[in-house]
């Protein structure tokens, strides 16, 4: 459904030193800086696949999503979404995509949601009975039927987001881009929207790209993630493999029965490395295959009152990849 090859995009921004004098200077002479937003990005996403797009602020997530939906014109590379060039913005293309931006609400009229949906029916040419069937289904799953006749500006943030989702999905798009759909929402609304996206995906199988700063969104919805840093893809693969590929192993933490025992303790390098020792506690990082032997080694050589084996936290790992601490 989505094929991207060597995509790049550079923005030209003009730089100005602060202050009035420099403002006047910049009237006559401008200093331009090239900002690379995307640097030869390639990826491919199939039907029914939902991919989590993760990256720090300014990494290029939104630029990528906007290029794929035809809003931004790229500088180089090829993009095919459903076989079409997004930036040609053909009606056949636009009728089959949806973009939801959590940070940017749609500016429709100051009207109840029900009216805006009628307008969308007209814009997308959705047959009447098909429209009411879909609308009922969407409002019921999102549990928002009672709010349909209230003006959009009087709704809460969570309710408005639900309306945005309905507005974006009424025309049954085959490709859906969700740019931070849960931003600023409380836990309950986040959960409701997450559940809704999961159900929707199950039922309609669109190709989906989800960007979010909340790892929970990504962890519950996406089997595959793409991590993007400074415009480059640094990881593209199963979410489950991130941990294996990017962490040396598991963490064993042993609490000792007698504090002084840590002195002089060492572990053979093939079994693991000691990360930290304080008086009563010792933390060892162990390669996955050596877990059993390392654990028994620790238990044999130390007198232990407590022992724990942990998987490094997935969001910590992703975050460190995002920031470039893992190479």
């Amino acid at each position, binding site marked *: 459904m989505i094929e991207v090859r060597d995509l790049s995009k550079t*923005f030209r921004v003009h730089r100005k030193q602060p202050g009035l004098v420099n403002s006047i200077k910049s009237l006559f002479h401008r200093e331009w800086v090239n900002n690379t937003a995307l640097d030869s990005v390639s990826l491919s996403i199939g039907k029914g696949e939902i991919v989590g797009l993760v990256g720090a602020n300014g990494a290029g997530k*939104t630029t990528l999503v906007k290029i794929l939906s*035809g*809003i931004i014109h790229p500088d180089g590379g090829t993009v095919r979404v459903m076989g079409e060039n997004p930036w040609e913005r053909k009606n056949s293309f636009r009728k089959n*995509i949806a973009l939801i931006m959590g940070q940017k609400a*749609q500016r429709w*009229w100051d009207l109840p949601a029900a009216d805006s949906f*009628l307008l969308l029916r007209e814009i*997308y040419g959705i047959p009447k009975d098909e429209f009411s069937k879909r609308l009922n289904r969407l409002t019921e799953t999102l549990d928002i039927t009672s709010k349909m006749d209230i003006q959009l500006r009087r709704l809460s943030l969570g309710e408005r987001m639900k309306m945005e989702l309905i507005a974006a999905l009424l025309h049954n798009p085959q490709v859906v881009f969700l740019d931070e759909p849960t931003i600023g929402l409380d836990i309950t609304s986040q959960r409701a929207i997450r559940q809704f996206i999961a159900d929707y995906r199950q039922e309609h199988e669109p190709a989906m790209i989800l960007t979010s700063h909340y790892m929970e969104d990504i962890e519950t919805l996406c089997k595959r993630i793409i991590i993007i840093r400074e415009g480059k893809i640094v990881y593209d693969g199963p979410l489950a493999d991130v941990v294996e590929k990017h962490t040396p192993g598991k963490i064993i933490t042993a609490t000792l029965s007698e504090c002084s025992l840590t002195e002089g303790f060492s572990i053979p390098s093939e079994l693991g490395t000691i990360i930290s020792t304080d008086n009563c506690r010792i933390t060892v990082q162990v390669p996955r295959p050596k877990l059993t032997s390392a654990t028994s080694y620790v238990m044999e050589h130390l007198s232990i009152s407590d022992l724990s084996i942990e998987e490094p936290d997935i969001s910590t790992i992703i975050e460190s990849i995002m920031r470039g601490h893992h190479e």
Partner: protein
Amino acid sequence: MIRYIRLYLYFLQFSFSRAMEFRFDFFFRIVMDLVYYGINIGFYLILFSHTTTLGGWNQSQMLVFVAGFLVVDAINMTVFANNLWVLPDFINKGELDYYLLRPVSSLFILSLRDFAANSFVNLIAAFGLLIYALVQYEGTLSVGGVILFILLLVVGAILRYLLRMCFLIPTFWLHAGRGFDMVFFQLNRFIERPHRIFTGVMRVLLTSVLPFSVMASFPASLLIDGFSWTIFAQFIAVTVGFSLFVAWFWKKGIRAYSSASS
């Protein structure tokens, strides 16, 4: 085409139901526009207390022309003005994103989505004045001539919209607030004067690249001075030319927008 008409009916419906909410604005607009009409009519009444003809037109003929450009103005205030007023802000703040996503012409939605239901009463008032001007007219008028006059005024209103777009679309590159729009409103005063009072370069300008004289003065001339193929052909040529130019210019603007927004 039918889809676009139906969409427009929705725009109308929404605009009316929203306008009812703001009563003060509703009455304020009516008063404001009626004052504008009064000033324009008064201006010519004073002129005609000193002279009997102006650019070849007497007082009763002049009233037809004045009513004509007030109709052009009222159509613009009602149909386009609200939309065009916010357009520079939309462009500068990157608000066009969602409009570009819809499978409908972005120029269509952005130019027509907000019908100024508040100004609707003024549109009726302007047409009322036009009817009065035609009734009081001292010469003879043919039915066909009157119908053509009104049709051309509507097209004149569209031409005024197209010309204003030419002053707004540069915002895509300049990102300046509304500098050019102010220039347009200064120039817009030329619509209030009959084209025959201008000569030389000025007249060429006002009937070609800045076609303010084409919008209301040409239709009035065709009615009052009799039908002329040259004036009619120039009217059509300028309108078609501007339509094509704005369509092309808008496309360029959107392209610039999409290379710049992030």
